[in-house]
């Protein structure tokens, strides 16, 4: 058991309240300042996204050499990533509801992925953002597929979780789309399939539309070149899946991101909620375009503290959050993108092996010593915090 370097009880209730009200103040300050700049920003991004999509789809259709075809795939991938991350995800959080613009309204927005927006708003905006990193309540922690902490019991199939991880990344939009099905609970009989019928209907409708757009309508428009368009759209979707899952994994599964138990979070105050969001999330640094292409989820900490503030404001907010964190001596988890991602890979690898008290321990030891020398040499060693 290697949890909680800084348990929730480390700050006194008074300190937590003061911490919370400072962040609330920061939030009010930004909300009062929202205006033309934010409207211009999101409309500019929407326009660039549309341009990307037009260029991408045109090149995929009409390109006569592989280089242009690859360029088309790249442009369409960019368009899909921008739409999903910087526009869709952020709009659905209600970041632009204050604009009263019907095309940027959180509750009616529909995005370019197989995941139904209604289902996303429930599983992501509500479940994940309210119960972030609470084991058993935040189903985004490992997506019920990956074991990322010793608090989750080890099963033999976890030996192959690195393969599962790669599959989950490649099929990420399907994983997200089917998230509300709660497959693991269905298997255990905690929920019945009957309850899930309305969700399944919505899922089938949305994924059907999505499939017919990318794999039927556009290929058919290309006539004899249909297989080329089919391939191009498929690759663009795959690139988008790999990129989004990588970004998202860097938000909560890095070495320093912590998990919590349900008991710890009972009767949580606003300050405690902020504190938990901070401890459970991690940022990464990079240039402007890395931030935009990640939908500013590179500022995952700020995003989790202020999910409904326009994301392009996070860089400015983060400076002030850092100051507040220093004041209360709370760690602020950030590093270069590559480094953070390596710790994610290390975590996936590390917890694929059985804990010391398992009867599969010996097999785990064997793999560990073998892998330590060979395969995982490029990974930074994962040192779980010491428990006294």
């Amino acid at each position, binding site marked *: 058991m290697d949890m909680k370097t800084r348990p929730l009880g480390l700050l006194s209730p008074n300190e937590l309240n003061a911490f919370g009200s400072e962040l609330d103040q920061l939030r009010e300050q930004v909300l009062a300042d929202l205006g033309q700049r934010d409207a211009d920003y999101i409309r500019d991004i929407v326009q660039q996204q549309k341009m990307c999509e037009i260029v991408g789809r045109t090149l995929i259709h009409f390109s006569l050499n592989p280089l242009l075809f690859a360029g088309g795939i790249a442009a369409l991938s960019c368009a899909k990533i921008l739409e999903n991350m910087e526009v869709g995800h952020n709009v659905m959080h209600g970041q632009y509801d*204050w604009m*009263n*613009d019907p095309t940027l309204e959180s509750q009616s927005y529909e995005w*370019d992925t197989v995941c139904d927006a209604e289902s996303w708003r429930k599983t992501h*905006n509500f479940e994940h953002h309210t119960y972030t990193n609470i084991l058993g309540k935040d189903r985004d922690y490992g997506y019920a597929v990956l074991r990322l902490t010793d608090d989750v019991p080890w099963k033999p199939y976890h030996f192959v979780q690195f393969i599962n991880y790669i599959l989950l990344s490649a099929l990420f939009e399907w994983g997200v789309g089917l998230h509300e099905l709660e497959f693991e609970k269905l298997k255990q009989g905690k929920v019945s399939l009957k309850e899930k019928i309305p969700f399944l209907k919505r899922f089938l409708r949305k994924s059907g*539309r999505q499939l*017919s757009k990318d794999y039927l309508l556009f290929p058919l428009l290309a006539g004899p070149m249909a297989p080329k368009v089919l391939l191009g759209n498929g690759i663009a979707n795959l690139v988008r899946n790999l990129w989004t899952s990588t970004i998202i994994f860097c938000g909560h599964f890095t070495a320093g991101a912590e998990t919590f138990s349900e008991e710890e979070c009972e009767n949580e105050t606003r300050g405690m909620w902020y504190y938990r969001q901070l401890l459970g999330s991690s940022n990464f640094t990079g240039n402007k375009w890395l931030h935009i292409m990640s939908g500013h989820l590179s500022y995952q900490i700020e995003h989790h503290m202020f999910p409904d503030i326009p994301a392009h404001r996070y860089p400015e907010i983060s400076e002030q959050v850092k100051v507040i964190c220093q004041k209360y001596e709370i760690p602020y988890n950030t590093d270069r993108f590559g480094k953070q991602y390596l710790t994610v890979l290390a975590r996936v690898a590390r917890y694929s092996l059985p804990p010391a008290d398992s009867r599969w321990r010996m097999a785990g030891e064997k793999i560990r010593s073998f892998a330590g020398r060979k395969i995982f040499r490029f990974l930074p060693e994962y040192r779980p915090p010491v428990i006294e």
Partner: protein
Amino acid sequence: MTSEDTSRLMQFSPILRCMNVLFIQVNGSLNGVRQVFRQQLGGVQCFMDYVLCRIDPLLSLQRDYAQVVSIGEETRQAKTFILRPSFLWKGFLAGQHIQLETEINGVRYRRFYSISSAPTLFAERGLISITVKKIPGGRISNHLHKTLRVGDILAIGKAVGRFICDQLDSEQLYTKSCREESVPIAENSKEVLFIAAGSGVTPFKSMLETLYSEKPERKVTLILYANRADELIFNIWLSQLSEQWSNFRLITHCGEQISLDSLRSDCPDMAQRAVYLCGPVGFMDKTIRFARELDVPSDTIRQENFGNVSRPSALVDAAGINLMLVEAEVLFTKTGKKIKSPGGKTLLELAEQSGLHPKYGCRRGICHECTCQREGGDIFNTLTGALVPKEQNRIQACISVPVGDLVVSDW
């Protein structure tokens, strides 16, 4: 894009109209394919509309837009904007109003304005006009006066409203959908009395123009109130009309309040007439009270409110009151349910108490799952500890405590 480009484009409007009909036909017949098109921002249809709007909003297939063709000054406070709606716009009945959308500092504001031109102008030349009076401190009216230029494009809504003159029956001008909304209350043969205050005269201009061209034999009286003589909107036009049209009587009162005596002397046969009222809320309340005293049957009076429909609750202005504990009454217009609260209950709790099952999530202001649309009324935000700004219509029900009367439109 300059206005010449746009007018050049608008010459193709018959072609676009055909394209649109074709588009709707194709769209309607291919039910399965339509679903692919119909998605919101992810959908092909929205994508196409986005591209069309970037070329020129007047080409939009999903929203109505209008271009400002000319701007005229009626008084020092009132301007008339002549608009050319895009080809999708369906027309209107004299007396109806449209929603106008304008953006200030990134926020879109929507206000209703009565159409002041006659439907014939739209039928013949495709133009409508609205007349906007500057309200002291009014954000939208001042903004329109200050910034709107010839050639600008505004988002508008379809013509709506039941404030329609029943003494008119020029069916050919109106589309069927407009007509369905009107419920006849007055007999067609009755003589007409219009009473207006300030910019309340705007819908009457549309009605008068139409009455004059279609039913000049009908007797019409307009009683018009204004603060000052130079604030009388359409003054010249109205006096010209009264010279040309012998059955039309114009009575103006400047700087006076409406009174029982003046009403009696202006129109002794008020009880026999179909009465149409348009003006600020206080003016209308008074006039209706007087009309009752003059034995005017209440079903012959038609009225149109304007200005602030939701009266600002006096409690909100008073300082030092715990807004959490103010009594409230909420109306959910979609289901027609109404509930009273002694104060302190959130909108979400109230909705659930009145038997509704709205969608919700965290119940603490994080996830926006319970977001709903407010139409009017004040709301206290339990997270910020302050009132929610007036222009913010999408509100989170779980952290909103209604203060006074509140109207919610999507539950």
